[in-house]
């Protein structure tokens, strides 16, 4: 299985296990008894009946494979992977956006809203390639002459998507803020309860779908230590459909939510059962698109991103006097290029212990793992940022043994080495001489050149919390938390 775009971890665990759990290859909700055929048994795959704008998407509903086809290949191609990708293909996205644009132009009231969320790492990847040659960019940045390129890229992307037919294009910062805040709360709570349940630590971030899928499939014992806070992508999805939607008289299936992200693993994440709003048969995130796909799409229509006029970024969470600033700019977070989860939690714990120091991350046994420590009267509080499969391997191993006592209290794990800036679907370097690690360094520099989000200054955060209501309530939990599920290995009983 050599589909580009996924993290290397997912490529090794074989996608089909995530979406085709049953040997009958049929979604569990509607079991179909296979009718015995005289020749060969037939296997059918059915998709989730998900509707977008009241219309079930135009993808093959049923695919029939012969059993002989099944046994001949070593990776059930029709299950999961290609169906998933076809459901979330750029072609499908363009088709839906175009339909929306045509309806709106014809002044047909379709009560349909297409919203695109821009993932920061993906924007940076595109900015680096499309905007200016490296030397010129360095000069520009140094002179602060023009807008910081990623901001300009975000606005060009807004122009691009709106030209395709999107109604709004927003940044993801607000969702990232909520994700950080909840991660912090969760950690504080678990730490306080550590005496009652020592195995509740370490807490490992759950925002990387590559890591989550890998753990669910191969290391189910790690599941209880994964943070239940949803990723920013999914938080934004439920915010748009469950909080914003009602305010503008749109039910979830009348909102088409696209997110621009740095890897294909996010497509898998968007398709999780837990992220389908059952009542409305609508997904929190309908489609994920990536820099690689945008590049291909532009090539196929013979256009360049710079052909599109920049458009302002929207802020659907404008309340009261609708002040902008946040929501209209691409922003970074302090800490790692993936969103600074460990850094944020470190800072709040630091503050709790009255320590006012900057975080010093010390690189560990390889460049993809680092640690920071808060000395406290009751012992050191350890935090770690670990990326890449080899470090994940080491961590899950330790979790299983008595070595777990040596693990940090909070671990930010990302499947891709160096994190989301090096996601599986980010653009490759144009310079063939430049290695992956060098490119990651460049992207990280660009990321940290962005204005850093200061959570406390975000007025919308408080307002959203007011709207979410009671922390024990359904809305609060639907928007901010999720669960994980161990995946049963399908055992065909073959012995070698």
């Amino acid at each position, binding site marked *: 299985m050599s589909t580009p775009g996924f993290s290397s971890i997912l490529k090794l665990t074989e996608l089909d296990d995530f979406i085709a759990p049953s040997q009958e290859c049929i979604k569990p909700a509607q079991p179909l008894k296979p009718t015995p055929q005289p020749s060969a048994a037939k296997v059918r795959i059915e998709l989730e009946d998900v509707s977008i704008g009241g219309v079930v998407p135009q993808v093959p509903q049923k695919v029939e494979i012969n059993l002989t086809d099944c046994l001949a290949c070593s990776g059930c191609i029709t299950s999961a992977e290609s169906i998933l990708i076809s459901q979330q293909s750029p072609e499908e996205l363009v088709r839906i956006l175009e339909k929306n644009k045509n309806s709106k132009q014809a002044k047909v009231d379709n009560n349909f809203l297409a919203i695109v969320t821009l993932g920061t790492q993906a924007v940076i990847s595109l900015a680096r390639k499309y905007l200016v040659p490296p030397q010129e960019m360095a000069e520009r940045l140094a002179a602060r002459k023009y807008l910081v390129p990623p901001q300009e890229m975000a606005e060009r992307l807004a122009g691009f998507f709106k030209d395709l037919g999107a109604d709004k294009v927003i940044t993801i910062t607000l969702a990232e803020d909520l994700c950080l805040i909840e991660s912090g709360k969760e950690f504080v709570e678990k730490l306080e309860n550590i005496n009652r349940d020592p195995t509740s630590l370490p807490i490992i971030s759950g925002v990387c779908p590559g890591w989550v899928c890998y753990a669910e499939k191969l290391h189910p014992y790690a599941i209880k230590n994964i943070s239940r806070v949803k990723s920013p992508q999914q938080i934004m999805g439920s915010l748009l459909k469950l909080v914003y939607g009602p305010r503008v008289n749109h039910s979830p299936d009348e909102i088409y939510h696209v997110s621009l992200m740095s890897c294909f693993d996010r497509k898998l994440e968007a398709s999780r059962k837990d992220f389908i709003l059952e009542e409305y048969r609508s997904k929190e995130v309908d489609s994920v698109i990536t820099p690689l796909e945008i590049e291909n799409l532009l090539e196929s229509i013979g256009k360049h991103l710079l052909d599109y006029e920049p458009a302002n970024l929207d802020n659907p969470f404008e309340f009261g006097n609708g002040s902008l600033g946040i929501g209209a700019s691409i922003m970074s977070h302090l800490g790692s290029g993936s969103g600074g989860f460990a850094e944020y939690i470190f800072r709040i714990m630091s503050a709790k212990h009255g320590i006012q120091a900057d975080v010093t991350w010390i690189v560990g046994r390889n460049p993809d793992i680092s640690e920071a420590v808060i000395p406290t009267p009751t012992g050191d509080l350890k935090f770690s940022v670990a990326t890449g499969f080899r470090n994940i391997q080491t961590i899950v*191993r330790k979790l299983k043994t008595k070595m777990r006592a040596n693990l940090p209290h909070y671990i930010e794990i990302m499947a891709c080495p160096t994190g989301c800036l090096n996601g599986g679907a980010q653009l490759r370097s144009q310079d063939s001489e430049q290695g992956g690690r060098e490119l990651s360094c460049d992207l990280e520099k660009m990321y940290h050149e962005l204005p850093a989000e200061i959570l406390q200054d975000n007025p919308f955060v408080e307002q959203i919390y007011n709207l979410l209501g009671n922390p024990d309530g359904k809305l609060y939990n639907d928007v901010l938390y999720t669960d994980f599920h161990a995946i049963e290995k399908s055992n065909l009983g073959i012995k070698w």
Partner: protein
Amino acid sequence: MLKLISNLNNHKGKVWSVAWNPTGASFASCGEDKAVNIYQKEGSSNTDNEITEDTRWTLAKKIGTNHERTIRDVAWSPCGKYIAVASFDATISIWEKNKSNEYECVTTVEGHENEVKSVSWSPSGQYFASCSRDKNVMIWSMSADGEYDIECESVHSAHTQDVKRVVWHPTEDILLSASYDDTIKVYRNDPNDGDWACTATLQGHESTVWSVDFDSTGSRIVSASDDRSIRIWTNSKDNENRWSCVSKLEGYHHRPVYDVSWSKTNGLIATACGDDHIRIFKEISAVNELERNVFDLAFTVKAHSSDVNRVQWNPKAEGILASCSDDGCVKIWKWIDV
């Protein structure tokens, strides 16, 4: 000629691998019965350390491991203290001899998704490598400061199919892997990058490469393949990452060649074949540069009554060869130059 010294029948079912202890004074074998047998020189007297054609070998220990499936490979650490055991149950176990002279399992390494096919320890002792049907080559390190802490140093999914064997360079931490995808890959540690990288892919075999080995200097590689040939490869002086095939030995083997071992003491190449034979190839002394890398078949013997799975030259005692087979036997041979 190859003279049979010992015929050891202490396994039930196929014997998949034999591995010499770095001192050459003992070896381990493993197979379908999920046990690891440790053999020593018979009557190891303290005065006589030499291994000759008269040395006999006997079973010293049988380790009934807790592996749930066939044990496919076994490897000693260079210090001789540890044995790594690779199993089809997807795990690798590490064993150490304790004070009562019994082997005990100090840790189990999980990480591969399915059958582990081979395990091998690096010459520095710092790393060991494993490979599996999951197409991955994994490099591990073990810190033994009382805790047997295993760290995963690197994972490579460079091969597109089942990886059959991993073998290290004799003196440097350079790794080779052989695969069902017909290629051999080379891996080196790049300190600048903080990670290992696949630095070369050797293509040429027309089918699965079952095994590889380096010559004593590490400048040449011999490979054994399902295509019934063995090939010799060298790298260029100006680019150590560019390997080319300088010799193809075809027509000698009647079935897939499952293993190849290049003696570090006398330069002989031994092969293990699916036609039950062991063959010895000897290099012809070259008169000039162009005539290098020419090998002659020096000897062939029907060594077992079924597929020969492994041949391994003793690392210290010249001319001593161990072999094992599907026929359940482990045999020790002595090469006698006639």
